[in-house]
């Protein structure tokens, strides 16, 4: 890993990043860039796939909002090798989702150059818009706090619930190619960057960015203590949640307002199926089936299979759940889906000694066998 500190002239953070991205896009290291860019209306940020360097204006790599999980977009771009490298600017939870999707062959890792930016917390998109419209500068406000190691949400709007308990506010270069560090960095004066040796060398050779091996030990300290603190909060929050939802009845109550709009599934970066089984013929029940169930039980809830839907989704992907909370953001009825997933996921992941997003080399548990699992009554053992 190589590191560097770029000194800034007064408050030119975005400008310097834009200049770096321009040099990168003009080089042959990437053919395009996927960066959060201000929306036409001006009050929000969404990812834009940029070919023309001139259009890098109005991008903000650290915009504290995540209308779409970028891993989903990147999967669309690279589930088949696109023929060029795409530079992607992502948040830690997006990068961790990329790791999982790579295992499921929904990302071609060789086709992406991943730049992860420290995440200071994100607002719900509508709240972010409101803040901007009220004249605030949420991105800058948070960046200014980050140097001291603690960011508070604006008094007018809280962070997304997932961000409150996120133990991954920053990454290192083990799963990404480059990191832009903000925690513990005085971004009015400096930008801190880490990159893999290969990328650092390439960037240096092409005069895109020189690496001077300057480190930032303060950032490391802050991240360590942040993680510890968040873990504590997380345990507390999920513990409380589990207290509330500790029975079949509890689950039913929790999900009672679900209307199976499937928004949580659509927005989940891990739910990669081209077409969910719940939207396939398997769940196209006939009228007489519904009526038969109603007759058997006296009454059935409609739409049917809501609990089944969530349990199935838990069953299928909770082991890979990276806790980005897009399900919460997507739910029109404010069902705390993320809490459910992180509670169950935490236990399942621990059981399988698996941590989603940790490493590309860790196989997904569903694809692995232990010798004893294959013993049949005939005494046959597998590989």
């Amino acid at each position, binding site marked *: 890993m190589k590191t560097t500190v770029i000194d800034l002239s007064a408050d030119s953070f975005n400008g310097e990043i834009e200049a770096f991205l321009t040099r990168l896009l003009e080089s042959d290291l990437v053919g395009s860039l996927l960066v959060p860019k201000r929306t036409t209306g001006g009050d929000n940020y969404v990812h834009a796939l940029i070919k023309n360097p001139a259009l890098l204006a109005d991008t903000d790599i650290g915009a504290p909002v995540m209308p779409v999980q970028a891993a989903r977009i990147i999967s669309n771009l690279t*589930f*088949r090798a696109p023929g060029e490298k795409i530079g992607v600017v992502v948040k830690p939870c997006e990068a961790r989702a990329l790791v999982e999707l790579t295992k*499921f*062959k*929904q990302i071609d890792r060789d086709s992406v150059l991943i730049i992860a930016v420290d995440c200071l917390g994100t607002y719900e998109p509508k709240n972010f818009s409101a803040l901007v419209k009220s004249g605030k500068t949420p991105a800058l406000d948070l960046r200014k706090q980050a140097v001291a190691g603690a960011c508070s949400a604006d008094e007018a709007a809280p962070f997304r619930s997932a961000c409150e308990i996120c133990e991954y506010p920053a990454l290192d270069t083990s799963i990404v190619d480059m990191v832009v560090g903000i925690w513990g960095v005085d971004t009015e004066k400096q930008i801190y960057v880490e990159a893999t040796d290969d990328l650092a060398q390439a960037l240096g050779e092409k005069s895109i960015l020189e690496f001077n091996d300057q480190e930032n030990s303060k950032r490391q300290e802050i991240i360590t203590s942040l993680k510890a603190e968040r873990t504590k909060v997380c345990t507390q929050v999920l513990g409380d949640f589990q207290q509330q939802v500790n029975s079949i009845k509890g689950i039913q109550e929790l999900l009672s307002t679900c209307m199976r709009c499937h928004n949580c599934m659509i927005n989940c970066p891990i739910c*990669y*199926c*081209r*077409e*969910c*089984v719940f939207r*396939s*013929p*398997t*769940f196209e029940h006939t009228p007489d*089936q519904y009526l038969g*169930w109603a007759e*058997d039980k006296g009454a059935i809830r409609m739409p049917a299979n809501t609990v089944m839907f969530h349990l199935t989704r838990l069953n*299928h*992907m909770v082991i890979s759940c990276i806790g980005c909370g897009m399900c919460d953001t997507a739910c029109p009825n404010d069902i705390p889906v993320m809490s459910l997933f992180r509670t169950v996921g935490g236990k399942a992941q621990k059981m399988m000694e698996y941590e989603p997003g940790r490493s590309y080399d860790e*196989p*997904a548990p*569903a*694809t*692995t*066998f232990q010798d004893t699992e*294959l013993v*049949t009554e*005939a*005494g*046959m*053992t*597998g*590989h």
Partner: protein
Amino acid sequence: MDKPKKVVVVGGGFAGMTAALQLAEQGTKVTLVEKEVAIGGFFPLLDNTFPTNSCGVCFLSPKQPAYCPFVECRLHENLEIKVSSRPVSLKGEAGDFKMTLATTAQGVDQEKCIDCGKCSEVCPVSVPYEFSEGLEERSAIYKLYPKMVNAGYRIDSENCTKCGACVEICPTQAIDIEDFAVSETEIEADAVLLTPGFSLVESSLKGEYGFGRYQNVVSSRQLERMVSFSGPSQGKPLAPADGSTPQRIAFIQCVGSRDKSCGRGYCSSVCCMYATKQAMFIRERSPEIEVVIYYMDLRGMGKGYEKYFNQAKNEFGVEYRRSMVSTVKEDPKSKKLNLIYDSGNEFLEDQVDMVVLSLGFDAPTIDFATDIELELDDYGFCRTPEFTPTLTSKPGLFAAGAFNGPKDIPETVLEASAAADAVLVSLAAADGAVETNTDCENDSAEVLPTAPEEGEVWIEEPKIGIFLCACAGTIAAEIDLENICSDLKKRPYVACAEIVDNTCTPDGLLGLRRFIGEHELNRIIIGACSVRDMERSLDDFADKIGFNRNAFVITNLREQCLFPHMGNPEVVNSKAKALLSASYVQVFNNLPAPSLSVSVGDRALVIGGGVAGLNASLSLAARGYQVSLVEKADKLGGRLLDAHFTLEGSKPAELVEKLVAAVTENDKIEVLLQSEITAHHGRVGNYSTTVKSASAEGDEPKIIDHGVLILATGAQEAATEEYLFGQNENVIVQSELEKRLAAVDTSLNELKEVVMIQCVGSREAGKREYCSRVCCTHALKNALCLKELSPATKITVLYRDIRAYGLFEDYYLKARELGVLFTPYEVDKKPEVQANGAGIDVNYYDQILRKDVTLNPDLLVLSVGIEPRDVSELAQIMALPLDEYGFFAEANSKAALVDFVGEGRYHCGLASAPMHIKEALIRSQAAASRAATVLARKEIKAEKHMVTVSTRLCSGCGLCVEACPYNAREINLASMIAEIHPELCHGCGSCAAVCPNGATQQIGFDKGQMMSVTQALMR
């Protein structure tokens, strides 16, 4: 195309059924001749068999997994069964035999009889039933074997009063009480296989044991009925005198065996094991009964048998006493029995309530044996050469099973398979061409015609037929089938709901077929027993009548309903209804089974170039198949290269020379020396194995595509550090002595005293618990040879049990006559060996003298036994199981000894278990025969429960690829869809389980279908 070859198999017991089916499966027209009114031989007598203590009738089939051979024999279109027939003469030569059969009418037309049993019910006669030696009674019109389906009714004309009641009541007019005519027919055959089996010796043979005089002396045949759940006392022994439960039962072994005084010097080989089995059943069901077995030598030579004895002793508390029983006397008042027995140094008495005589085997009689100068031994068993054990003295005439010497079921099945192989090899040689046509024309009226095309049942309006199996009364006893049927009939689309007596029988299936035709059924539910028992027969049945396999759904009313809730009719009945409701939904939603067929490669891969591998390769090549023979060493021959002579006097060197020359000259056999297996995958019919040869270094590894695999990797002489071996030059192993004897080492003449210790390292829990099988005969042959060379040498054999089983017993007797001393020792009191200056002291406790004895032999010879090679790496590459000792594991220890679970891969020779050369030859032929039945098929139907993939739904995530243990899934890089290789799919469903959105669905376990089924079950 040539006319199909014709083979007559004489005798419809295990051997006959096994061989006949294997011959039929490979396109030979077979006539199976049985003297009784039904095939089956001794099997129907056996309730459960050792060493699994399970019924095992369904495991007897040469087809695996389980399916009943009785049924299969009746169903196979290449197989004709002639019952109540005796071959009276045989004329002609190999390739042109003419056999005359005398068929006796039994008063019942077997074609018309539907097995309803009404005739016996009305028959006024009651006479002792031969089946259980009078333990039960029967009528004059009766079934040969009770309980047995289609066992065939017959009239015993001697006891028939000709009252005509049976004729009147018979619903199918099958009875003619006057018809006992004998008719003669002549049949032609290219080859004849004799499998006439054996009979049990007369129970009264040994008068001193009082059978027939003392009521409480019973034969092992009678006891077998007593310990049978279908027997007169429902599985518990009762003293015949008063019907009470005996407190103490004694078994007397070797009744009519190992006894020159009654003209039977041979060992019957199976009695120790069956007595142990019966003793275990008694102790298990009535723990209050004491059981003691009086025996001379405990003989259980099979791989798992030692464990069985130990289990009987330690877990079931069966007592074994080594002694000879001289007489049995009855106390006339109490009917108790006093056994007088020789404990070795004194006569002792034991009072028991019941005595069981373990009856031995008698050789069968073949009417035309003398006419055709068939060579028989002094006892009447067929004499076959040691190295061609299924060939008789007459070309074209083959023999197998107990006719060749007493043997147990596993060996019988193996020998029958080997004989089928030998017959086919000889027919192929006679022809110069190879007959592998399995679809030969059908020139006799058979049970079922050839398969019609499958109909498009999936697009038709459902017409459901529901058939509930009464299971010979078992299911009907507790489940109200009539009530359930009338309920089911009310459901939409149900065309009929009927009760069938025994669905698993040919008649049951024929009944189904009638209903299918009558109601034009296109979907069928069968409420019967376990899918495992039923599926195979129904699949074949479906294929034969042109039904898609998945149009049948089996509901398990027995194991999953009746058995667990027996005695609780409410639960049983409501569960039966729920299970049938679920099947009703399932049969609607089933997807059709793929009608895909996969072609079978015509090459066999044989691993191991010892006697077993060589012999198997030659068999397969002779049948026209290509063979790749892979050997680790730099030359062929294996352990045989170190063998010099056998007990029976044959020269292994000549055998190995012959086999190696034949293999080397055969252009169908490719030999790869100094080669090892590095990778293996595929499934039956289509395997791919990577072989790396040290001889061709630098070369690319060779990839061999083959249809079947035979593992014959051998074993090795066990290593030992016991009894000063390796420390004292006068302590050697038997193979070393054999080498010196073969070299006529003159120093052997000067030996004054030789001691042999048996079971070194064998038969010991924690070491090698199995018996190495060959060491007793090894010691005998060396002792005999040494006595011949130097009669003055004193030879003492310290043994635990002399296992000179079968016809080897004669050699044991001969050794004793020549003055070889045999002295038993117990495993907890093993001999001790110390160096004493230049000599050796052997100390042991003499059980007869009851004191410690010291011998000072010039030479101490250890029988070290056989241990498996370390083949764990190979087993892992092949994903094949080893048993607890490290040999390859058989699919079933009774009837599938060369098989792994599933078809296509086989093992034989010492890689399977310890065995003699002759037995290795038999096993390798049996393995070749099993392998050839696969190759002969040319194509194999794809797995019924194969998976399908929806290209619309597949995300190409590859979870299925990783999860598949058989390499049957692969991502198509162009479409990014996970495709299926049907030839590799085993239908395990792992891929369907990991597929998150049901893009992969398993046929028969489709997600939607399973949800409906679950829903139906929860109603």
